[in-house]
């Protein structure tokens, strides 16, 4: 009964707020929303229930927790839920390490429905994306081809990293990070003003990533008939689609597998079918250790608007040719390229005891030379690995400070594990 009472309190309250919303001056909206959220949180806490606000306008960025369509499925599977950038998501379902190994050896599934899917279509869409992205969508010549790119500001700083798919008649599909949703959409809309394009956020779609050496085989068995053959035949970095189902051979783990977007009403059934087919549910924790081992950057940790692709080991994602293509940030990036970047993102391994973590400082001959951007214990290598941004003229083996002790770390290539094997 308590639960029913609190939900009704919450929705009545937010409906009241929405009715008079237009009368409130914009500068005070955020403050009001914040205060309401705090009151609602107290009510929810007193009633021992989770808080979910329905009616506060989306145009206001309120840090509230949202649930994906798979929320109940996570609870059923024993997911330990955490707040991740405003989303309730499982960090693990019992053992992060078991989930990690399962993706390296068999097949695991991640709920990534919090990520933002944006479809971009219209006669100018190619020209628009050639301006918007540092990588060149002109290289997407086959229907279904995918490309990883950064979206830069005029200073060459990274607004976000993303994957863009060219789906032929369906136009382009872009998948960006969840935490950057508002600023990305605002930037994309602002930049599109002079182009004839339509920009459609597909928040009604759920997104799951099925990853691991057995992932494709097991996931294909659960797909609609029309998609089975084309999905099985997908080459790496290509995609196919049918109705509102979209299947791409991409991922964030360094393993084979598929990323599947589908209508959120159907995702529960699909999730259950995957679990029955022997695919293990995996949480954000394993997603992080897997991507680190695979040498993949995390936006907000390894890069942000103060860093460029060149200082983030993403130079390979910048298409410098043709020279006429004036993508946003090109001038600044060219200048960095000519003068050389001061710092670079590198890989490090700790052979001794301990765990490297973001924020730990690196030293060479007692001088500070860099800082770890992401670090973890690698379940595959059974030792700690990290990315660090280091002064370009000091790259090499050095010392890391952990709890006032300096310990030697080895400079290595930024890919630690490829297809299940240590590199």
């Amino acid at each position: 009964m308590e639960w029913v009472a609190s939900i009704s309190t919450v929705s009545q309250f937010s409906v009241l707020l929405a009715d008079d919303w237009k009368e409130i001056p914009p500068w005070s909206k955020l403050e009001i929303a914040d205060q309401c959220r705090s009151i609602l949180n107290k009510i929810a806490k007193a009633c021992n229930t989770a808080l979910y606000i329905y009616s506060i306008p989306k145009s206001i960025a309120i840090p509230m927790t949202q649930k994906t369509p798979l929320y109940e499925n996570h609870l059923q599977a024993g997911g330990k839920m955490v707040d991740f950038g405003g989303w309730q998501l499982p960090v693990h379902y019992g053992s992060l390490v078991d989930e990690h190994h399962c993706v390296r050896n068999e097949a695991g599934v991640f709920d990534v429905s919090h990520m933002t899917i944006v479809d971009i279509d219209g006669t100018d869409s190619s020209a628009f994306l050639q301006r918007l992205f540092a990588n060149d969508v002109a290289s997407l010549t086959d229907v279904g081809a995918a490309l990883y790119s950064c979206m830069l500001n005029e200073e060459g700083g990274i607004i976000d990293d993303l994957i863009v798919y060219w789906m032929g008649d369906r136009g382009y599909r872009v998948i960006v990070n969840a935490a950057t949703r508002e600023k990305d959409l605002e930037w994309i809309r602002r930049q599109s003003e002079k182009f004839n394009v339509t920009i459609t956020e597909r928040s009604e779609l759920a997104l799951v990533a099925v990853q691991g050496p057995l992932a494709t085989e097991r996931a294909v068995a659960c797909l609609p008939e029309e998609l089975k053959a084309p999905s099985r035949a997908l080459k790496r970095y290509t995609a196919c689609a049918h109705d509102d189902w979209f299947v791409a051979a991409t991922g964030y783990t360094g393993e084979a597998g598929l990323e599947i977007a589908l209508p959120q009403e159907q995702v529960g059934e699909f999730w259950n079918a995957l679990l029955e087919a022997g695919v293990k549910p995996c949480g954000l924790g394993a997603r992080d250790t897997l991507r680190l081992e695979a040498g993949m950057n995390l936006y907000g940790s390894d890069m942000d608007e103060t860093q460029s692709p060149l200082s983030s080991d993403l130079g390979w994602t910048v298409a410098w040719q043709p020279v006429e293509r004036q993508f946003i940030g090109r001038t600044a990036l060219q200048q960095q390229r000519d003068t050389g970047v001061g710092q670079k993102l590198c890989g490090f391994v700790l052979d001794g005891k301990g765990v490297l973590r973001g924020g730990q400082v690196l030293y060479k001959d007692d001088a500070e030379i860099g800082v770890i951007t992401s670090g973890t214990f690698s379940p595959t290598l059974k030792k700690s690995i990290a990315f660090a941004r280091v002064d370009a003229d000091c790259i090499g083996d050095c010392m890391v400070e952990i709890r006032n002790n300096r310990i030697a770390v080895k400079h290595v290539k930024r890919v630690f594990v490829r297809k299940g094997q240590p590199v």
Partner: protein
Amino acid sequence: MNIPNDLFYTESHEWVRLNDDGTVTVGITDHAQEQLGDLVFVETPEIDATVSAKDAVAVVESVKAASDIYAPIHGVILDANTALAEEPELVNSDPYQAGWLFSIQPEHATEVEELMDQEAYEGFIASES
């Protein structure tokens, strides 16, 4: 959740066992190991070190995070569980027995009894979540 009734507990989620010889053994609770997740590294305290209550004396690290372990009472470190260097996962699988962290010779015999008992700790966890 497993909270044995013959142990004492701290607000930082250590358990404390009062042994027959007057020494105490310390570890982290089942609740704490569950919150931390798979442990991959344990740094135990130096033997013979004199410690005060609430001193950070050991570190446990899971894949996701590092966490300090505090001395529950004043005393001298008698022994540390060296098996954890090779098998930190013992803390996850058997937090109250094989996963013990260190033992202390208490400075004041009665200090342990000022800590929470099973019931109080249960209530404390409920109030925290």
